[in-house]
């Protein structure tokens, strides 16, 4: 007979199940975490999550986490030839320590900002096309995948002129717009690269994609990516800011934006205009200066 003082009785389902002691504590904790996840699901994403939701509790898995584990396992694994990635300016490993160190540092600085501000969805854009945002987004995602723990998702939302598939050397990527418009499930469009990175390539260009970003279906699908895959960080490779209204419609759907500036081309006025557009809708996490004369972290 256990000591009634040390026993915590928890009646669930009208007393049919009685759980005592440590098991009851775990169940309570799981129920609390489950509530947190549900509150995340029904509330807007902006600034609504805490440290535990971002980086896990270290305890037992919740129902949502179990489902995301299963989904990650169900995603088709994909491997890329390192030489091909390298030729396209991607650094999947630390064979080139100087380049990979830049993105590792960027990853750490961005993760730190996300942790401080509760950001989970970061949009990566540039003032104009060809500024290197896909390259930065892909390398940042690869740097996130190099972590010993944690998961990240990279989605190509530059549907008018998608470039991520080409960067990774994927010749037959699916039509991501079919997923975004609710015509096919997530599992058909995302690939898993190693244990910690899911990639959503857009294989088919969709002219006039910006017309659809306001649709509730698209908004729900963007939410679903974060909910079902439950990554630490979701990166959206978005269209350029000054080329159309695509990004402007997307900005309210993310927690923060990262602006990739081409140091050989983008002008002061273009940066100022981009900054103003972003800050109208969401925080600007910072700038990545691409094609810079000097490399490194910070100024």
């Amino acid at each position: 007979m256990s000591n009634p003082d040390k026993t915590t009785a928890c009646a669930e389902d009208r007393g049919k199940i009685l759980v005592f002691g440590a098991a009851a504590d775990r169940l309570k904790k799981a129920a609390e975490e489950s509530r947190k996840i549900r509150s995340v699901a029904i509330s807007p994403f902006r600034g609504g999550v805490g440290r535990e939701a971002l980086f896990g509790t270290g305890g037992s898995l919740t129902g949502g986490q179990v489902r995301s584990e299963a989904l990650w396992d169900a995603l088709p694994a994909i491997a890329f030839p390192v030489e091909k990635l390298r030729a396209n300016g991607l650094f999947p490993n630390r064979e080139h320590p100087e380049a990979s160190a830049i993105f590792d540092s960027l990853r750490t600085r961005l993760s730190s900002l996300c942790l401080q501000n509760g950001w989970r969805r970061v949009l990566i854009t540039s003032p104009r096309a060809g500024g290197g945002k896909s390259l930065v987004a892909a390398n940042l995602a690869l740097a996130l995948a190099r972590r010993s723990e944690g998961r990240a998702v990279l989605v190509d939302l530059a549907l008018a002129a998608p470039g991520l598939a080409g960067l990774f050397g994927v010749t037959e990527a699916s039509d991501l717009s079919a997923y975004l418009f609710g015509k096919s499930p997530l599992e058909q469009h995302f690939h898993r690269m190693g244990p910690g990175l899911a990639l959503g390539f857009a294989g088919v260009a969709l002219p006039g994609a910006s017309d659809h970003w306001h649709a509730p279906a698209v908004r729900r699908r963007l939410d679903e990516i974060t909910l079902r895959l439950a990554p630490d960080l979701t990166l959206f490779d978005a269209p350029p800011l000054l080329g159309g209204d695509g990004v402007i419609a997307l900005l309210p759907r993310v927690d923060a934006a990262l602006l990739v500036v081409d140091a050989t081309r983008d002008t002061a006025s273009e940066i100022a205009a981009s900054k103003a557009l972003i800050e109208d809708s969401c925080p600007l996490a910072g700038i990545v200066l691409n094609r810079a004369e000097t490399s490194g972290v910070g100024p």
Partner: protein
Amino acid sequence: MIFEWPHLRGLWRRVRGRAPRILALALCGALAGVLVSPLTPARFDARAVLEVDAQAGADPQALARQMQAIELRLMGAETLIGIIERHGLFEGDALGEAEKLAALRGAVRFDPIFDRFSQTLGEARQLVALSIRAQSETPEKAARIANDLAQSALDLAARAPTGVLRLLPLERARSTYAARRIGPLGLAVLGTLAGAFAGFVQIVLAYRRDPVLRNAAQIEQQFGLRVLASVPDLRKPSRSRDLARLVHRPLKWLPGGRERPDL
């Protein structure tokens, strides 16, 4: 300074980025050249040459003075009005006498020809011939003007009281010289160059007004934004990729043309 190396690189990228604009202006220039070509009057050149026979031991200064006097007389109003009347120049043009004289003076040139060999032997330069060039709208008129001036020069030399030199006809002007006129092709080339230059200048001026911020410190200073990373150019240079971009850029403006992947 705009022409520091990093700025020059930025400027070059800007020029490359605006290449379609430069090409469009060059094309407009070429078209304008072709269109303007029929409007430009043809000019023909003719040349008569007189031999200068100086007396042995003649004072070079006296020689020069006599040549100068002949040239002044030839360019004088009396001589030129005579030429205008004899050859029916400027007929149909609503020009006053002063304007006709100025136009004819602008179409005539005297070039002294010196002996090259005397110079190599260390002697003073010797005037050996006088070239008289004339321009007109037809080769025949140009030749007639040049020959008329040459004949006038002969007459003036013969009548000179201090005859330290003698002029002799060496070469008569002929009407077989090619037209000194820039053809449609030449004007098209000039128009292309002018258009491309105008486009380039416009880009340079725009660049000066709105420069590229090329390092993190400049961005942080100007906008107060944090620069999370500075990434060098990571992609391996690829000529085929550059060529593909060059081909793709104009194609995307065509109906149904797809934008190149936005990286």
